[in-house]
């Protein structure tokens, strides 16, 4: 039975659950990695802003290379195994055409997700990344399916 409520995650957050809930977020140049382990029905999603922690500020989950390993660790803590996990990645859009740097952020966010998932040998079974549109996604933890809709530019700002 799917709960009617949806758990919304913001930039720099992770949600991992064993209950068949819905996890949603809105993405621009940010990337969300959705993980699901069918064997134990554990799933989770993260939402990160930048690819790499620069070692300067606090080591928070808004950085891909901090957030993705943390998401994987949280999944393992709930009983999932990296060899049975499947990943889906979303986001990484190029939002601002006038800013070359912003375009690179989206690309790098995608690249970091692929690299780290590859390091952990987690298969990417679906992805919808890049492009110029923001995305709204909802992960259903009953089956690990993700619903995706593209959003108008004004709706997602600089997420």
């Amino acid at each position: 039975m799917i709960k009617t409520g949806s758990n919304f995650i913001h930039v720099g957050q992770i949600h991992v659950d064993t209950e068949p809930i819905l996890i949603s977020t809105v993405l621009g140049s940010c990337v969300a990695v959705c993980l699901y382990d069918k064997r134990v029905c554990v799933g989770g999603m993260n939402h990160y802003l930048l690819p790499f922690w620069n070692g300067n500020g606090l080591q928070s989950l808004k950085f891909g290379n901090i957030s993705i390993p943390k998401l994987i660790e949280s999944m393992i803590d709930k009983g999932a195994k990296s060899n049975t996990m499947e990943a889906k990645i979303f986001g990484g859009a190029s939002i601002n055409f006038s800013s070359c740097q912003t375009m690179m952020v989206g690309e790098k966010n995608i690249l970091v997700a692929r690299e780290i998932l590859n390091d952990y040998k987690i298969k990417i079974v679906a992805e919808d990344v890049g492009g110029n549109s923001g995305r709204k996604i909802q992960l259903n933890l009953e089956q690990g399916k993700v619903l995706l809709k593209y959003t108008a530019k004004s709706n997602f700002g600089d997420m």
Partner: protein
Amino acid sequence: MQNLSKIEILENEVEFLSKKILELNKKLIDSDKAKTLFLSLIANKLNDPMTAILGMLPHLKIQNGNEKIFSTICQEASDLDFKIQNLITVAEIESGNMNNTHALLEIKKIIDEALESLKYIIKDKNIEINVENLVEKKIVTDPKKIYIITKNLISNACMHCPQNGVVDIILSTEKSILTLLIKNESSEPKLKEIPKIFTRFSEKIDSRHGLGIGLSIVRELCESLGGSVEYDIDNNFVTFKVKLPLDEAMQDFQACGSNEFLFDSFDDAIEL
């Protein structure tokens, strides 16, 4: 190779450089992991006895002539607790265990609570605190994060304020943005330190004050709430301006914690 377009060459270069950065970052993270674990352990080990001390202090019988000693113990315990709470906050942020919560609250009460916990330094330096509250309604936000943000900023203002100085706190809302201004006089505001002020341990330049993590916590928590914090110096006055977005729609939900209103429908969505 000769058939590769400029875009493909650029993409390959980006991929190569990103891999290099990733490798270097892995090393950086590994060396920092041990520190984070240590920080988390030490913060919790310090917190347990501190909770007991703070809980028992009010039950002590004060004898005549011991008031000053008792007051000093309370002040030091309160100060130490503040530092431990900041260490715990850093450990929570770095471990990823700090999520947003929502509650309907009166912002002024949070400020009062922060001021009460800083009463010793305020009394000690005889600081005049002026609070101007222009927020009429209750707001929906994360109470714990707001408390940590305000306490760190007020504490910072008090520490850098001269004896008998003034700290102004102004709270206002406009267009669904909560603005918190904390202004204090400072004898020697350091203009050159502006870029580093929110970087952790940058206070080593001025190690008399705190651990050097308070302002980095403030920035991290403001950003986690979708807001920002700025620092400005004007004629020996230092002002910190915190801007946090308020979700008016959330108020209708009575802070139930759901953000479903953001989504219209997934009826015609793509399934992946």
